[in-house]
């Protein structure tokens, strides 16, 4: 059995070589599309854009193991936008589904009943509601067992598929269907967004990263780097969601970029628990710039400015970057 932190044999190719294969610009992004257009996802779905880039990095020899969420509806009988295999499981257990597939492929190959050429990468695809809440147990188990798999969480900061309700990923002061701002509770969501990166990183997985659909070069390079590790390779993509966030569908990329430029979404990676930030804005924009264009935060500005809440959000962002000594 592979111990924690085993590095894949790669024919003498060391870590450095792998890093050298990093792409430099958007022109280097692989042109192949492994996910075809024509899905029922909303126009401007940030998660779908992130997934499209991930699929370019992963190639076609994969099986996606999906949990209940918006992307379950990517594969509706008899259609699929993917050129690869797919298994929908349920909301809590996609990582367990990945375990069964990985183990089955391994044992079938070992017993000579499956050609090693037929092997697949196993890729979990879930939303935040699944990742941050219901499948924490199955994910923790999979990471702890050093399961050789990828996990892509498209984080639209709500239970999107059920019509945008609060999830463990919903940020403070966000309006959702179950956190409606009102006279008694003018803030909307009173809870802070969980730090899933830290939760996952406490297991010290070989590779863990945050990604953004507005930073495809960073995204692709992270997948390239992850490839050398046997074990869990985990990705969280902050994914603007036009209906959930109250933005125009043409704003997705702009907002994904703003999330990074304001410091709300830190692009980083962790290798066996050691965290590095991969994109640090030269000058951080004010968080307000990010908030005020989104319908889900409109109540913070109208009818009265909720100064305390706005300050709290900015302070928390400052505190994060100060803690990492990266606030310039």
């Amino acid at each position, binding site marked *: 059995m592979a111990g924690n932190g085993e590095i894949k044999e790669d024919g003498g190719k060391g870590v450095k070589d792998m890093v050298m294969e990093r792409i430099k610009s958007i022109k280097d992004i692989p042109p192949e599309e492994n996910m075809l257009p024509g899905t029922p996802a909303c126009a401007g779905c940030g998660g779908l854009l992130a997934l499209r880039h991930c699929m370019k990095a992963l190639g*076609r*020899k994969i*099986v996606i*193991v999906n949990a209940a969420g918006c992307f*379950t*509806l990517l*594969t*509706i*009988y*008899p259609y*699929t936008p*993917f*050129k*690869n*295999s*797919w*298994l*929908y*499981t*349920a909301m*809590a*257990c996609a*990582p*367990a*589904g*990945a*375990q*069964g*597939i990985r*183990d*089955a*492929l*391994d*044992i*079938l190959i070992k*017993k000579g*009943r*499956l*050609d090693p*050429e*037929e*092997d*697949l990468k196993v890729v979990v695809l879930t939303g935040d509601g699944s990742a941050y809440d219901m499948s924490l*147990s*199955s994910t*923790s*188990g999979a990471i702890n*067992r050093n399961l050789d798999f990828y996990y892509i969480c498209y984080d639209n900061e709500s239970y999107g598929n059920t019509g945008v309700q609060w999830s463990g990923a919903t940020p403070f002061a966000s309006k959702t269907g179950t956190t409606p701002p009102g006279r008694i509770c003018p803030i909307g969501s009173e809870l802070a967004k969980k730090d899933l990166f830290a939760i996952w990183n406490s297991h010290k997985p070989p590779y863990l990263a945050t990604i953004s659909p507005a930073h495809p070069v960073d995204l692709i390079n992270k997948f390239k780097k992850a490839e050398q590790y046997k074990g869990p390779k985990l990705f969280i993509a902050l994914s603007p969601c036009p209906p959930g966030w109250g933005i125009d569908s043409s704003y997705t990329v702009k907002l994904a970029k703003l999330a990074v430029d304001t410091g709300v979404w830190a692009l980083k990676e962790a290798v066996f628990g050691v965290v590095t930030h991969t994109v640090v804005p030269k000058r951080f924009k004010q968080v307000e710039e990010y908030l005020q264009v989104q319908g889900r935060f409109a109540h913070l500005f109208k009818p009265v400015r909720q100064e305390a809440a706005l300050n709290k959000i900015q302070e928390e962002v400052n505190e994060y970057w100060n803690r990492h000594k990266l606030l310039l």
Partner: protein
Amino acid sequence: MRKEMLTGNAAAAWGVRLAEVDYIPVYPITPQTEIIETLAKWISDGVMDSRYVTMDSEHSMLTAAGSASATGARAFTATSSQGLLYGFEMLYAVAGWRVPLVMVNVSRGLSSPITLEPDHNDVLAARDTGFLQIHCETCQEVLDSILMAYRLAEDERVLLPIIVNLDGFYLSFTREPVAVPDVEQVRNFLPLYQPKHAFFKASQPMAQSAAVLGGSSYSYFKYQMHMASQNALAVYKEVCDEFETGFGRNYDTIEGYMLDGAEYVLIMTNSFSTLGKAAVNNARERGIKAGLLRLRLVRPFPVADLKAAISRKKAVAVIDQNISIGKGGILHSEIASCLYNEKHRPLLLSFIAGLGGKNISPDEFEFIINKIVTGVDTEDAGTAQLIYTDKEWQEMGRLKRMAGKG
């Protein structure tokens, strides 16, 4: 072949070993744990070549077992009561994947109140999921049923998962002599699993478990499952015959005990049937023409076999070791629905007994059999009887007084 003294759990483990299962995701729960510990030891000792993994819950365990099966491996798992319910969502899901997973359930009463001893509310809660169900009376039957279950589940006319059920404690921890067949003999009966319908491999991408939009597609797939389950009745007979040819033991969908010439019939399932058979002997000694029918295949429900066996009897008493709160015995309802349109049908009585492992004593059986006889005389089946003895009533009174509720 060799004979060994095995517990029901050890017999189950032997069935899995002889079926040369590829993959075993597990989660512990009393009274099932002995099965997975036995398998773990065999794998650790190298006498069994399977991949084995302890999951974080039964929900995950069932998902992993189902997805491994969907990849093309022969998978096994086991659970009981709370575990079965914890994984419940995935029972329906995995059955819908049309994968031939075999799972052992070691029956145990459901919380609340939390308890350890058996009744069948756990396994019967799964009756509508699409899993076929085989319920066992003896340790030998447990081993044999696992082998038969893989043959049945993997048959292309069926392709549904199967639960093999045995009672906690009464069977799981009771040693009986069990004939353990040779693996070559089992290989003849149970060939390698090589699925044509569901697998994952790079050269043939496959989308499994896709969503559907609308009731037409949904109904289509559900009807397919129902029809496959119905097919399983005929396939079961073939499997049964071949098993008998290979191993010399016969297991029909139902087992009749002194049914020929019987006028009054008890219907039971699982290990307590042994007590019922003894009660039948006692009744015969008293000159009452009693018999017993043990239901072995619970899903698909063996309607034709049941009708043929009991429609011309004078009276039938279903002893349900389960309770559908607000309705009564689950199997009583199912058997009543089979008989309703029959020209000749017996008087049908309902008894609830043996909940949470409560014993059914010879006196209680005598009470039940007397009720059947007087029911026929008065042409009155009465309402469902909740069996409880005077002694138990008094003892419960004592406990209540201790609890300050007397």
